[in-house]
């Protein structure tokens, strides 16, 4: 019986609705100390002097460390696997504490105390004096000739600049084109806003090992980076990930782990915790890269795209974190959408004195898709063609070859997704109906589409591990290195294992807490990779596991091994009916038979070398209140081609969440800075992430085009849902008002500027 394509409840749902699920801060240790970081009140400058005495004298403060006390070595923080090629490793540009502060909220000292309030008050007593340097906040100032250097290793404050061109000569195609449309677009810096803030603690329980308990998407990478930051062998670090309250990429970065490890190491192993406030999460974790783009699209008069020419500037902020990988990843995932057109992609990633940008759901693709999709809409307008028809004419079809790597796209469901979505939202009728409105309240329809990848290969190694253990009672423990961060990975993994073994889902226990000392190796939760990459490891482990079960069953029963198989949790004979052993019976034998057998354990690791694209599109209907400059989304559909859907309910939840985040990006969210680089809205009141009344009912559907390269026919899903809502909304606003907005978020304040300019 298959457990794929059905919607059992999440394995951890009951634990979460009853308050039993324990997150990092819910595991207090006796003697836990609390640390608070002393942060820079300026965006750029040098610490001239620092006086820690008043803090040290404050009752309850136990220790204070400054930039003078931490290791010299620079370390990287990006949640990428280690790379054997030195030139492909992440940029190491961070120390635990710094005297050269590079953004508002940068870290100069840390105070450890017996409770949080004492540590916070102690931190306020540390007196640092600064020599201010110019705050380079945007592309113009950071890239200006002669601008102050934010990092010595980056001349001109350029972290990296790359140009790629695939599918033909873009210059030639631009010259030959019947029509070229162009535009300039801008997308904002936003924050992940996971409900659990960043939190880690560390302790030592022997002479050699530092144990870090952390709200992280990437325990194995955190382990390696802590080792790098402290100059310790990696195996001396152990990272444990409990239940995790959302990450969205922010926790695909090594945030607090090196600091808490350093503190416990310095303080003789006492447990030390840092739990960031919400305000600190905004200023001092990671954000989404702000993008500026200049772009051109060449096409024939029939509306056939011939070339995209994209130039983007990606602002990585104070520290590299994921750095140029964000812009580069988007460049590599985009050519799958319109594979018959050439694509030139010129990307600059630059430093600036703003909070560091890192990974965030979509990883560059939302920004680049916004630019590409806006362009496509310009083309539709220029040709007076229905925007849906124009997309249908150009999107990938199964059998197309990607210009990026010359590989065949075996499953491309974007045509089908667009078709289905247009039926669901009643595109043709409503587009016609909403033409040429003039009143104060206007409606419009928009569509946008994108491609994405299934993992990070070949940019990074794609390695996943799975282990199956047959317990004495016949239940199966599944341990994977892939981390459950709220997306439902554990449940999906259990469904995959259940399907592969033909053992009921109820028989599985999935180890939800990854522990680098105990769980199989996997690089973590990111790139929507988990199900795709783990599936092959699970399939391989299941084959071995079933083999061992049948071997023992044959030995004990005398029935030939090949005449038996697993069915619905039993070992059955060739007729599929006769039960030779129940799994529980065989399990007991495996442990306690005096002479034969052994506990049945199977483990497999798998390196994936395929990375098939996935597709999605968004259809929205908006209502614009012209006098109040307000856009309300009335209907929203996301249609996805992610191959076979393992659990439609969980998948829909992922899609809704992405749509909500995408609509937030489209209409509400932006981190605002003053002219000195201070974050103005570092809290959930002033940062307008959508609340329940700000989002419409969210709807989704899946076109299941089975990917033959995967043992289960699955591809990726987690991130794409947030990519397309923003351009779809922008296009719908254009349809409703006749006003083309080339930036997001389209807040009332943004729309106001455009409406005033249009005299509306």
């Amino acid at each position, binding site marked *: 019986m298959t457990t794929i*394509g059905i919607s059992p*409840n999440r394995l*951890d*749902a*009951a634990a*979460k*609705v*009853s*308050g*039993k699920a*324990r*997150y990092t*801060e*819910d595991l*207090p240790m006796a003697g836990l100390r609390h640390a608070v970081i002393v942060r820079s009140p300026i965006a750029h400058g040098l610490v001239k002097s620092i006086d820690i005495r008043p803090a040290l004298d404050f009752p309850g403060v136990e220790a204070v460390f400054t930039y003078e006390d931490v290791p010299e070595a620079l370390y990287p923080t990006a949640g990428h696997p280690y790379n054997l090629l030195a030139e492909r490793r992440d940029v190491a540009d961070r120390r635990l504490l710094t005297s050269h502060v590079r953004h508002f909220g940068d870290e100069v000292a840390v105070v450890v105390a017996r409770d949080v309030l004492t540590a916070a008050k102690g931190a306020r007593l540390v007196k640092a004096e600064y020599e201010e340097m110019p705050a380079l906040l945007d592309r113009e100032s950071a890239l200006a000739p002669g601008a102050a250097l934010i990092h010595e290793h980056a001349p001109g404050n350029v972290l990296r600049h790359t140009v790629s061109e695939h599918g033909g000569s873009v210059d030639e195609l631009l010259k030959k084109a019947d029509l070229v449309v162009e535009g300039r677009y801008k997308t904002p810096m936003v924050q*992940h*806003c996971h*409900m*659990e*803030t960043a939190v880690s603690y560390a302790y030592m329980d022997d002479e050699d090992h530092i144990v870090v308990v952390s709200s992280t998407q990437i325990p194995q990478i955190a382990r390696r980076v802590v080792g790098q930051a402290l100059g310790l062998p990696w195996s001396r670090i152990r990272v444990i990930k409990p*239940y*995790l*309250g*959302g990450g*969205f990429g922010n926790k695909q970065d090594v945030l607090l782990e090196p600091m808490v490890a350093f503190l416990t190491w310095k303080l003789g192993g006492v447990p030390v915790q840092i739990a960031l406030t*919400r305000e600190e999460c905004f200023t001092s974790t990671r954000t989404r890269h702000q993008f500026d783009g200049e772009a051109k699209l060449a096409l024939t008069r029939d509306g056939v795209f011939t070339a995209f020419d994209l130039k983007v500037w990606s602002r990585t902020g104070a520290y590299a974190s994921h750095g140029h990988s964000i812009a580069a990843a988007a460049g590599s995932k985009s050519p799958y959408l319109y594979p018959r057109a050439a694509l030139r992609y010129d990307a600059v990633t630059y430093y600036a004195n703003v909070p560091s940008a890192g990974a965030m759901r979509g990883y560059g693709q939302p920004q680049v898709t916004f630019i590409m999709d806006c362009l496509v809409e310009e083309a539709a307008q220029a040709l007076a063609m229905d925007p849906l028809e124009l997309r249908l004419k150009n999107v990938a079809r*199964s*059998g197309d070859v990607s210009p990026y790597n010359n590989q065949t796209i*075996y499953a491309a*469901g974007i045509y089908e997704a667009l078709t289905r979505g247009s039926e669901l939202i009643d595109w043709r009728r409503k587009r016609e109906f909403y033409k040429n409105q003039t009143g104060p309240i206007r409606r419009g329809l928009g569509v946008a589409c994108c491609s994405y990848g299934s993992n990070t290969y070949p940019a990074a190694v794609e390695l996943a591990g799975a282990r199956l253990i047959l317990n004495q009672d016949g239940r199966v423990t599944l341990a994977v290195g892939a981390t459950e961060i*709220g*997306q439902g990975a554990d449940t999906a993994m259990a469904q995959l294992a259940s399907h592969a073994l033909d053992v009921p889902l109820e028989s599985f226990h999935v180890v939800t807490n990854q522990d680098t000392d105990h769980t199989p190796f996997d690089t973590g939760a990111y790139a929507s990779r988990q199900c795709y990459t783990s599936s*092959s490891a699970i399939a391989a482990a299941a084959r071995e596991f079933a083999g061992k079960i049948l071997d023992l069953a044959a030995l004990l029963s005398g029935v030939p091994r090949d005449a038996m198989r697993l069915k619905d949790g039993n070992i059955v004979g060739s007729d599929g009916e006769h039960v030779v052993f129940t799994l529980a019976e065989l399990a007991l034998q495996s442990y306690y038979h005096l002479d034969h057998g052994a506990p049945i354990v199977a483990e497999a690791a798998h390196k994936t070398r395929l990375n098939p694209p996935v597709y999605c599109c968004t259809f929205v209907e908006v209502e614009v209140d012209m006098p109040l400059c307000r856009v309300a989304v009335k209907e929203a559909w996301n249609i996805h081609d992610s191959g076979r*859907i393992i659990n*439609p*309910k*969980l998948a*829909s*939840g992922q*899609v*809704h*969440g992405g749509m*909500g*985040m995408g*609509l937030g990006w489209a209409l509400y969210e932006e981190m605002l800075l003053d002219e000195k680089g201070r974050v103005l809205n570092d*809290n*959930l*009141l002033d940062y307008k992430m959508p*609340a*329940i*009344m700000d*989002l419409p009912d969210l*709807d989704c*559907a*899946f*076109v*299941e*085009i089975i990917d*033959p*390269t995967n043992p289960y026919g699955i591809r990726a899903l987690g991130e794409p849902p947030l990519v397309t809502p923003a351009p779809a909304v922008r296009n719908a606003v254009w349809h409703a008002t006749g006003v083309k907005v080339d930036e997001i978020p389209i807040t009332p304040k943004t729309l106001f500027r455009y409406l005033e300019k249009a005299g509306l």
Partner: protein
Amino acid sequence: MTMVDLKLHVNGKDVETAADPRESLLEVLRGRLGLMGVKEGCGVGECGACNVLVDGLPVDSCLTLAVWADGKCVRTIEGEARPGGELSPTQRAYVEAGAVQCGFCTPGLVMTTSAFLERNQHRLNEITREEIKRAHAGHLCRCTGYEMIVEAVEQALGREVKGAGECRPAPSLAEKHLTNERR
């Protein structure tokens, strides 16, 4: 500050505890009573993760001084299940509807739903989707887009819900074009 003695009625039981008057109700529930299902997401009443019921009303326990709860009935997520541990109808609805993802906002939301249903016991049939949203407007959730949270409340009301998006198999390049991934 001088410690004070608090008498609370928490999840159906009388509890006495010493507390620092500077402590929030959140801190006392978590730190002194070990009720770790109460979560802190912002500390300033902007996210709703710390929501508990005080005398039946949802409040942000991060913005409630613990001394204010002296002598009052406090209900947290730990008190939501039926005696014996059976999930309450609200909890079951959250599980079934798929309203739970990372789970960090869940305890606070479940408590609001539970209070909302109790308060509207006499008019459950009249409750609209809009009203459900209004009643849950004091909670932020980043995982779900709120869709399945609204559905969970409707499910708790015994209504039919939309459920998962449709999955339509579509034709693809036949599998014959490919062998399995090279291993």
